[in-house]
């Protein structure tokens, strides 16, 4: 699904990623853990093509193709999704208009006809229910006036609607109380399948109690310094990141 080789990236003049190697197979869930400033969010930003993040070395293959050659929207059409750590507010654009444009753009890219309005609304309702979003949110402006938990649920709702093949969850658990965390985790688990992969970026073990990762990586100072299984999460919980 994803092969990252010797990835270096900088923001402005500052090098943040200093040679990352990471390989994710179909159906796998990987956790990327690390302290603040390790480069976790930069990894998510580079994968989705956020402007301002410059790759200086290395390569990323996604489904066998050069991911870095694609625009952000092309990456989305190819099934890549990032749940933002800080979801963006879009005043004046409703969730319905936003997601309708997104779903239909992806369908168009795959040569499919646009969804009929009724079919789209039905699908939206179903996916909103998955993350326990109230139906009236469909008419709300994207993320405007949402609480922290509502924003994160909105991200997972979008993920459910777009049915990505590779989901990157950037600190989706930060700022969530236990109930919201469970809702988000249930949403993520509902989307697991042998074909779909996910990367869970977090500095905290909480979400990983509900979503079991297959592989755990520790990212520190722009490099992956350790890779293992569940035992790494326990080690981090017991002794923090200094041991690496």
């Amino acid at each position, binding site marked *: 699904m994803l092969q990252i080789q010797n990835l270096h990236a900088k923001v402005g003049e500052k090098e943040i990623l200093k040679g990352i190697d990471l390989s994710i197979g179909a159906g796998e869930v990987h956790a990327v853990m690390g302290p603040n400033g390790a480069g976790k969010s930069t990894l998510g930003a580079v994968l*989705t*093509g*956020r*402007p301002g993040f410059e790759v200086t070395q290395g390569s990323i293959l996604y489904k066998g193709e050069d991911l870095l050659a694609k*625009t*952000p*929207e092309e*990456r*989305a*059409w190819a099934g890549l*999704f*990032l749940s*933002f750590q800080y*979801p*963006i*507010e*879009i*005043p*004046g*654009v409703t969730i319905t*208009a*936003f*997601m309708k*444009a*997104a*779903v239909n*753009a*992806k369908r168009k*890219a795959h040569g499919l006809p646009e969804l009929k309005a009724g079919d789209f609304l039905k699908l939206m309702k179903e996916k909103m229910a998955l993350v326990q979003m109230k139906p009236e949110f469909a008419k709300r402006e994207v993320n405007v006036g949402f609480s922290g938990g509502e924003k994160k649920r909105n991200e997972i709702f*979008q993920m459910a609607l*777009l049915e990505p093949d590779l989901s990157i969850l950037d600190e989706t658990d930060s700022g969530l109380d236990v109930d919201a965390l469970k809702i988000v985790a249930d949403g993520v688990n509902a989307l697991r399948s042998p074909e779909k992969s996910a990367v869970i970026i977090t500095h905290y073990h909480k979400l990983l109690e509900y979503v079991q990762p297959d592989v755990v990586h520790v990212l520190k100072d722009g490099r992956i310094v350790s890779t293992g299984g569940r035992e790494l999460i326990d080690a981090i919980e017991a002794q923090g990141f200094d041991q690496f």
Partner: protein
Amino acid sequence: MGHGKYIDPLADARSKPGMTTSVIAGLTGNLYQVPAGERLELQFVVLPGESRDIDLSIDLTGPGAQAHVKALYLCNGEEKVNFRILMHHRAPGCHSTQQVKGIAGGCAQVHFDGTIVVAPEAQQTEAYQENHNIVLTEQARVQTRPQLEIYADDVKCSHGATVGQLNPDELFYMRSRGIPEAEARTLQMLSFLSPVVPAGREEEVEKAVRSL
């Protein structure tokens, strides 16, 4: 009139039932006098392809008079769009709003000069003025000069003016969900303009936004 792109405020004011105002076209602009208890609503739409001077002087002459001005402009090329709006509260208990929003591309030049004057006798005035602008290119120029002159003490007045660009974070967020860049820009521009788009002209405005 110019290809129906521009709503003539005089014709508009005359044609709308219930809008009984004195309308005097002066030499240097349009003077509107709104007597006690009457309500004036003006709506302007300036679409790409023409330069316009919109020069308004509105006098609220009787108690409880109201005036509401909405304007939208979209311009590119070498166009020049100028707004000069003088809102004069001369009587107590009057209410006015001005909302001017637009997008300048190409080498367009836009100038907004808006003044609210509240006379000493115009107590319990409510007057609001907003001018928000987006520039799309390095060459486009927008100047905005909102002004308040208040001579009464019991008033609610505010004005706000901004000149900005399309928000890159919003654009990236939309693109990351698969919305193509051009479509994301259009969505952003339409949402910015939506408070000043007249009912029934949404499609025309959308077409013009796509042309920028």
